[in-house]
């Protein structure tokens, strides 16, 4: 089956499944309701479940430096929950939300997780954005046996019974993208640049191994800039000296904006230089400016311009809820999946108990995701596709490539 056939097939299948699912759900909401699922039966561990409601938590930074990134995730999660409630909720129970602010401060994430799990007894938490905040909160989730849906693409090297990762781990985001650019652009030499912290460093390590061992290419430079540094003059000159076929970039935050502006000003625009970045989504474009990005490539699993019925509907509803100017990036979409996956798992398990939900979710195939078909792997990550987007001046990307489904591999052998 060629990839386009396959796409066709999946499209058809997804429509079918979507329809049948919707029918099934309407039946459930119409007749079943909470009475069919007595509270005593569906919640045996003291979670905040009543006959009418179930409480979940949202834990992101609404304040501090990370608020820039995490706002989209909060919006998406709330949208998904509102939609679920409109459809009748989960096991006939309306979802109530306790939202906590992590304030861009990692111990606060741990402490708020503890509050959500121990005081509020939430059935699930949708939250965390940076790896540091997840790492801080993780021991709490493991100790209190909570359930976390984590939306960000991240470096992998982690797998917990209590966490589902709805974004991509590093190999999913990196390998297919490098394969594509090597084939498409006949790239032989790569220059790797990232912010100086764990995600870029891990990603670059995987990228380097892949380039050198599997693609027969050469890494001509590897560079890390301090978080928050905004001066790229010397770095850009080094790149000019090495003349790489491709710049592979994972710069984040304020540095990212400065990086693109200064790169363009130094004459390295997309006409002269191929760049593939793994740290630019539609959210970042607002700060960088479309004119500075035009023609460069991003590797993500989701772009707002994706053409499929699920996404059209999702984008329309997101804009209806948060205004015409709202943009949706990769993480926002991944965050949107969290509540839906949880709902599906609870219904498969027929229970809110974390132990049962955790067992029920792996193997679940979701066809209604805006990004298309995804499947939950036994390792708690999602099977998903990788797309390459080429940025336009208006801040949106044209999807120029779509891979097949990629298995998540958080502990990649041969890349460590």
């Amino acid at each position, binding site marked *: 089956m060629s990839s386009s056939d396959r796409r066709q097939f999946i499209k058809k299948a997804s429509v079918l499944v979507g329809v049948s699912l919707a029918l099934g759900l309407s039946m459930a909401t119409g007749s079943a309701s909470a009475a069919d699922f007595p509270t005593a039966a569906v919640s045996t561990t003291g979670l905040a479940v009543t006959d009418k409601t179930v409480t979940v938590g949202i834990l992101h930074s609404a304040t501090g430096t990370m*608020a820039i990134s995490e706002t989209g995730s909060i919006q998406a999660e709330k949208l998904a929950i509102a939609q679920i409630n409109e459809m009748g909720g989960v096991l006939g129970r309306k979802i109530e939300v306790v939202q906590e602010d992590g304030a861009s401060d990692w111990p606060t994430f741990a402490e708020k997780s503890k509050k959500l799990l121990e005081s509020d007894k939430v059935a699930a938490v949708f939250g965390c954005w940076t790896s540091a905040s997840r790492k801080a909160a993780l021991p709490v989730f493991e100790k209190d046996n909570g359930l976390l849906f984590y939306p960000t693409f991240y470096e992998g090297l982690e797998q917990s019974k209590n966490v589902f990762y709805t974004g991509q781990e590093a190999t999913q985001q990196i390998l297919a993208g490098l394969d594509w650019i090597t084939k498409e652009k006949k790239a032989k030499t790569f220059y790797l640049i990232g912010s100086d912290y764990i995600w870029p460093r891990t990603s670059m390590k995987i990228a380097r191994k892949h380039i050198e061992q599997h693609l027969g290419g050469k890494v001509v430079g*590897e560079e890390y800039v301090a978080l928050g540094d905004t001066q790229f003059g*010397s770095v850009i000159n080094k790149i000019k000296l090495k003349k790489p076929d491709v710049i592979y970039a994972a710069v984040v935050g304020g540095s990212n904006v400065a990086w693109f*502006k200064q790169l363009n000003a130094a004459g390295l625009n997309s006409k002269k230089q191929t760049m593939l970045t793994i740290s630019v989504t539609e959210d970042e474009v607002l700060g960088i*400016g479309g004119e500075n990005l035009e023609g460069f490539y991003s590797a993500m699993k989701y772009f707002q311009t994706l053409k499929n019925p699920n996404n059209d509907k999702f984008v329309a509803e997101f804009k209806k809820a948060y205004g015409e100017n709202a943009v949706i990036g990769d993480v926002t979409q991944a965050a949107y999946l969290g509540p839906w996956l949880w709902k599906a798992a609870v219904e498969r398990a027929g229970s809110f108990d974390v132990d049962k939900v955790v067992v029920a979710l792996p193997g679940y195939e979701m066809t209604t995701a805006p990004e298309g078909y995804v499947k939950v792997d036994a390792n708690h990550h999602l099977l998903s596709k990788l797309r390459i987007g080429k940025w336009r001046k208006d801040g949106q990307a044209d999807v120029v490539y779509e891979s097949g489904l990629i298995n998540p591999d958080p502990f990649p052998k041969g890349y460590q």
Partner: protein
Amino acid sequence: MFGYTMDEVGNIMVMQGFSGLSLFSVLLLMALGLAIIFGQMGVINMAHGEFMMVGAYTAVFMSKLAVKYEMVNSYFVFAIIAAFILAFLIGYLVEYLLIRHLYKRPLDTLLATWGLSLVMQQTFRSSFGAKEVSAELPEWLLGSFKPTADIDIPINGVFVMVLALVVTLGVYFFMFRSRGGLRVRATVQNRVMASAVGINTQKVDRLTFALGCGIAGVSGAAFTTISSTGPTTGSLYIVDSFMVVVFGGAASLMGTIASAFGIAQAQSILQFFMTSSMGKVATLMTIVIILMMRPEGLFASKVRR
């Protein structure tokens, strides 16, 4: 040499020299306002970065207007003037409400302005959103000059450089060639004497502080061409700014210029030969060690204390 042709090495050296100069003008613009406020008045303005952001947001706001009225090609000059005026006014107000009560307690100005910076950050966030924004830049500010086929000189770098030159000359003429500047220097050197000869020292203080803030606003507006604009971006600049001023010997304007030059060259060269983040650490470390050996800064003169 290292497998490169002489031509390539030459081109890189030209461009590397330029990025050193460009970093120099960035640091200079950053530090000039602070050199006036901290160096001349002794006020430790931790909200300096936020005053820069006042300028940056002004530029962003103006660019939105410019897009609406189709003036994208010419608005930037006005944006810079507006940034100066707005930051100047806010500075004036802040001096009146806050700073003037604290002249005798310099360490407390540090704490109070830190509080101010929190308030300003949240104000930016509430009015412009938590996400980073960018100003629509005129065509003539984008891209690069190409004196030869292989040399690119960034236009925004040149722009920042020219602006740094203009502002520095402006400050120089104001401080050393005008009556206003004379009053400032007199007040700084001997407050009591200055007021005895009829200088309204309170007014001078207020205008000096406001001037420093205004210059910070100008640099903030200029930096929208090379880096990001967000509620917390200002805090990225604060340590660098203070390092430049302190390293130069706080009270000396020439010192600030020389130290911006020295730090820029060091950082630019170190970042070329080491990884960028280690280059930054090495630069800061060098400054700290030199400051420990020569706490009065590089360019302070020996006087009877």
